[in-house]
């Protein structure tokens, strides 16, 4: 109790001095004005139900839980004052609806008066809640949004941070990487591409389509399919008949599984076999076992890095499941950054945003410094090798592995 009283007095002093700063950050809630809170309230509204639930359950929620667990196990976030303050969680289900998500964020801000809000899953939802985060001055660490508009959006929303790159980035990087392999004589020029008719597939497919010819490839198949298509075998049969050197599917998790399954069944084994979201999921490896070797996708990780391994281990210990090898580590990095920013500047949201934008952070993926509030150092292409999904491009990045091309044959 004694310590508490002195602490209160100190915080009152700090409050007074902070008040002069506070008027600059009108949007910051009352909690932010206290420099030394007893706890930090963290809120999130993510899809526990509806079509987005699988994405949340794979990539987002386990990381959030792990983060809270680790912080509180250590006694809390250590503020500048040296005091450790635990985090307290308020969570909602956005039911995979943009409208529910917006309202839940309003609720977290105005009713629950949380100090920070962790973002929802997916491009659409992150963009839907963007204006609300912006209005109330909360930093939005969009770690699962892939949008070509990210460079514009950071200008519009000064508290928004984009970690997962643009569709354009992935599409173009993939093709220009493949050009290197073509020039090395490992693959021919025929590319077959299929993409899911959703923001993700359209962005990545569109980017790839634009640059295919420039990099000396020929697009022999280029079709989209609707979300929720249950049988992709007609497309794959047709593609197999075209005998492409490179097969690219910008697909979603259930399709990724279906495509791989069907390719294996009909013995479609191009030199480069690339599938979309879901390839990096633990589920993928569990289902296909050794057959995953050689499959490419977006994302990846330097799995030999001890920090990454430690993260994998902790994730599995605490949540009972392995993280995916694409967005999971990035979500984790964003959380590490948020924690470090709070440790450095406290719970003042404007200061935290500023720190996130300009600071350098020590994460499981090394030193991270955002550029224009976006993270440029992504793994654009990865490949399953020896039971791990490893980054292969950009090839000059530390930890990049040479790709295995051609892909090994499917095993029965």
């Amino acid at each position, binding site marked *: 109790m004694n310590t508490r009283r002195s602490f209160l007095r100190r915080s009152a002093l700090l409050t007074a001095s902070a008040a002069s700063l506070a008027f600059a950050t009108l949007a910051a809630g009352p909690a932010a004005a206290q420099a030394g809170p007893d706890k930090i309230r963290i809120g999130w509204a993510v899809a526990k139900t509806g079509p987005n639930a699988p994405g949340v359950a794979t990539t987002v929620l386990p990381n959030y839980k792990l983060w809270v667990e680790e912080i509180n196990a250590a006694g809390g976030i250590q503020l500048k004052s040296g005091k450790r303050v635990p985090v307290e969680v308020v969570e909602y*289900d956005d039911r995979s609806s943009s409208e529910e998500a*917006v309202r839940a964020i309003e609720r977290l801000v105005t009713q629950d008066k949380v100090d920070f809000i962790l973002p929802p899953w997916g491009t*659409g939802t992150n963009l839907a809640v963007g204006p609300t985060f912006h209005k109330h001055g909360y930093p939005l660490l969009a770690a699962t949004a892939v949008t070509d508009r990210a460079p514009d959006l950071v200008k519009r929303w000064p508290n928004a941070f984009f970690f997962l790159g643009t569709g354009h980035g992935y599409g173009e990087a993939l093709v220009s990487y493949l050009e290197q392999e073509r020039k090395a004589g490992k693959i021919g020029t025929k590319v077959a591409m299929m993409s899911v008719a959703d923001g993700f597939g359209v962005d990545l497919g569109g980017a790839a389509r634009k640059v295919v010819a420039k990099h000396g490839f020929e697009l022999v198949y280029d079709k989209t399919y609707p979300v929720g298509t249950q049988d992709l075998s007609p497309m794959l049969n047709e593609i197999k008949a075209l005998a492409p050197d490179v097969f690219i599917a910008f697909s979603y998790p259930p399709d990724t599984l279906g495509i791989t399954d069907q390719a294996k069944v009909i013995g479609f084994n191009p030199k480069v076999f690339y599938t979309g979201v879901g390839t990096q999921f633990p589920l993928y490896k569990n289902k296909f076992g050794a057959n995953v070797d050689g499959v490419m996708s977006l994302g990846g990780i330097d799995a030999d890095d001890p920090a990454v391994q430690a993260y994998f281990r902790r994730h599995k210990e605490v949540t009972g499941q392995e993280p995916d090898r694409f967005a999971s580590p990035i979500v984790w990095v964003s959380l590490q950054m948020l924690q470090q920013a709070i440790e450095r500047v406290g719970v003042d949201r404007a200061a935290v945003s500023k720190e996130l934008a300009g600071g350098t952070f020590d994460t499981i993926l090394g030193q991270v410094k955002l550029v224009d509030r976006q993270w440029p150092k992504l793994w654009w292409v990865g490949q399953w090798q020896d039971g791990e999904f490893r980054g292969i491009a950009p090839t000059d990045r530390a930890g990049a592995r040479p790709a295995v091309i051609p892909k090994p044959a499917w095993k029965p």
Partner: protein
Amino acid sequence: MNALPSPAAAGNPAGAGRLALQALMVAGLALLAALPWLGADDYLIAVGINILQYGVLATAWALFSGPTRYVSLATVAFFGIGAYTAAVVGETLPWPAVLAVALGISVVLALVVGLATLRLSGVHFVIFTFGLAELVHQLVNWYEVNVTRTLGRYLFVDITQVQIYWQLLALLVGVLATGWAIRRSRLGLALQVIGDDEVVARHVGIDTTRAKLLLFAISAGFIGLAGAVMAPRWTYIDPAIAFNPVISFQVLIMALLGGANRLFGPLLGVLPVAILFELLSGSFPNHFMILLGLVFMAIVYFIPNGLFGLLQRRRHRAGKEGSK
């Protein structure tokens, strides 16, 4: 809804009650409109938007489906069209023009679809309208992917949350006023007759197709407008967000719960469901679905005729006891 003054208005004790009710409604409306100035915080406005949105949708839905008993799941087709229209032209046209375009497209679609489908009945119509909404979703999707080559549109317009709230409130007043007027018109009587017995309707000289079509279009127009009004709230709109079939189901459930055959019935369903959703999802984010399911079933088993029916029976009973 009667050609004759209804019994309640004819000077018996309930007539005074109705007058009081009307006064109360006007007062309530004024209060709702002033809410943003009375220090309601953003969350309260957000909840208000949610309730108003479903209020407009459910009331508009019941305009058509209540009297005709054609259960439509096409709500989201029109809602999505409205939202998508706003996303397409929202940054280029002035806002009233955006609303007009959304209204126009919804009404035209409703007329075309209505001509083809209103001869279906019962569950066939239900599933047909569900299929219709999905078809519209798929076609918009295909068009965006293959023609415009971008999926997902960004809508940045300077419309604040409070402005959306007011627009929805105006829309709700509009849809209620329309419903009120229809109920007092020949069209209203025609629909009641159609809902009771379509064969008889034709044999008393009602052009049933025209009546149904007209109402379907009016209902669709309001739903489309609601979609357009809501669109700026989400910044990013893709077909999956605009044409989320959950909206159709939620509207259906709310309207049925409240009582689709009364003008204020759907509203009566919207309030508890929306508030219930809000309370449950806040207090029990992990058991939300289970609790919601249980509450739903409890409603079906214990409040069989909709909340409006329940209230009416209460009043009935009270009236009877009073006269003893």
